[in-house]
């Protein structure tokens, strides 16, 4: 084991420290994001979640793990990919913690670090979505599904054929993508914005080095 990897009890590894900075920076941008300090571990979020039975880390545990300095294990969990963004946890939290928005932040962090779940191809759906949107400025549903199936396995598309035919029969499938008129300036906006979307740990924020738990929350 290399010297740097040996941890003094009660301190964070460099990797955890980096993740923590990125996470705190990201949470800082959410209006009311700092409320995460006020979690009383009551479990209302987990109890309200319609999908918590499928998660390896429940929403309450997610906040507990963040406090314990284990963001790495949160990012590798299936929890952040199972969330359907129904906002039940967020709207019921007695401490007004923005749980859903925090899960969004974690999803962003995982994607930036290319940590993808094998079973839930959320990132493939996102890639397909972005591809369709960037070229036309609007989303075209049949194209989105097509890109998605090409990425995740074309055999999946067979089970969608009856549905597709039914939709087409009702005139609800439009293959021709509608394009916005001012697509060139739309692309300029995206290009500029992506320059600003640098990974957040670059714009480092001060945090107490080596602190864990409540002290490190800031």
């Amino acid at each position, binding site marked *: 084991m290399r010297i740097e990897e040996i941890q003094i009890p009660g301190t964070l590894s460099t990797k955890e420290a980096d993740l923590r900075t990125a996470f705190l920076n*990201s949470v800082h*941008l*959410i*209006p009311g994001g700092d409320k995460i300090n006020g979690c009383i571990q009551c479990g209302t979020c987990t109890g309200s979640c*319609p*999908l918590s039975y*499928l998660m390896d880390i429940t929403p309450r545990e997610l906040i507990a793990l963040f406090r314990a300095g284990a963001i790495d294990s949160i990012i590798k969990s299936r929890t952040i*990919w*199972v969330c*359907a*963004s*129904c*906002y*039940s946890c*967020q*709207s*019921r939290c007695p401490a007004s913690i*923005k749980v*859903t928005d925090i899960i*969004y932040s974690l*999803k*962003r962090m995982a*994607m930036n670090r290319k940590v993808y779940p094998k*079973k*839930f*191809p*959320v990132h493939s*759906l*996102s890639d397909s*979505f*972005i591809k369709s*949107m960037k070229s036309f*400025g*609007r*989303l075209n*549903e*049949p194209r989105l*599904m097509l890109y998605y199936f090409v990425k995740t396995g074309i055999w999946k598309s067979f089970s969608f054929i*009856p*549905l597709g035919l*039914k*939709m087409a029969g*009702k*005139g*609800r*499938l*439009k293959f021709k993508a509608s394009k*916005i*008129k*001012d697509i060139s*300036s*739309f692309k*300029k*906006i*995206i*290009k*500029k*914005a*992506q320059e600003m*979307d640098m990974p957040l740990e670059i714009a480092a924020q001060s945090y107490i080095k080596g602190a864990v738990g409540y002290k490190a929350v800031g």
Partner: protein
Amino acid sequence: MKYSYYPGCSLHSAHKGYDMSCKAVSKNLGCELVDLEDWNCCGATIYMSIKKVTSLAIAARNLALAEKEGLDIVTPCSSCYTILNKAHKYLSNSPELLDSVNTCLAEAGLKYNCTVRVRHPIDVLVNDIGLEIISMYVKKPLDGLRVANYYGCQLVRPDKGFDDKENPTSMENLFQTIGAEEVYFPNKLRCCGGMLMTTFEDAALKLSEEILDCAVENKADCIVTTCPLCQMNLEAYQDKINKRFNKNYKMPILFFTQVLGIALGLSEDELGIDKNFYKCEKLDEIYKKKVVEEETV
């Protein structure tokens, strides 16, 4: 009353019926919807979860366009409603984010000053136009139609402010006004699975099944919804749900504007009702009734 109308991508393809009925109903009630010129996709939940500044910038482009017109945005899609609302909230709250987003928008000669309000048609109908006015326009009261009012997640959550987020009553009030009967429907705010229907079908089918089951148990004639994605999951995936859970559901899923349109005496073609997969027999009966002429005093 005049609003800037932002249909969103799905209303231009898979949910044409919602688009048509929204326009027809508002025209009938004397509320003017002006199409937002050259709108772009709001970025939806998917974009929101992967890039921050980019997602805010593309949503803000729409807000900036509406601001130029000096009108509030009305959007029927729950997801667009959430995203545009959220973008507005984030930008009003954080000057640094607003700065970076405006730098991006400047590339297209636009600027956002955080003055636009983002509204949903149900909010406009109940709170701006008002139930009293609507009741004066009713031509065919929906007597005996049993509706399950399904709000879905993103219409009232996280903090939309126009209705209670645990027990909203806007739709109940509206349908009571036009003569329909509401059924006991405790699942009205339960998640349908949303975009998990594509990425994690097993979980989403289970959630949608619970909603359909609740409506059938309580003998609803139809489920009325405000969200295109909910409509899609509950209607288009009903075959799959029947197969998976060994059920035989044939539940019509209608948009609230379509049902309202029938009560206002509009034609089915105008409301795009034939685009739905399942026909609501009871609503069809009401539609075929003759309009009762007002008695002259």
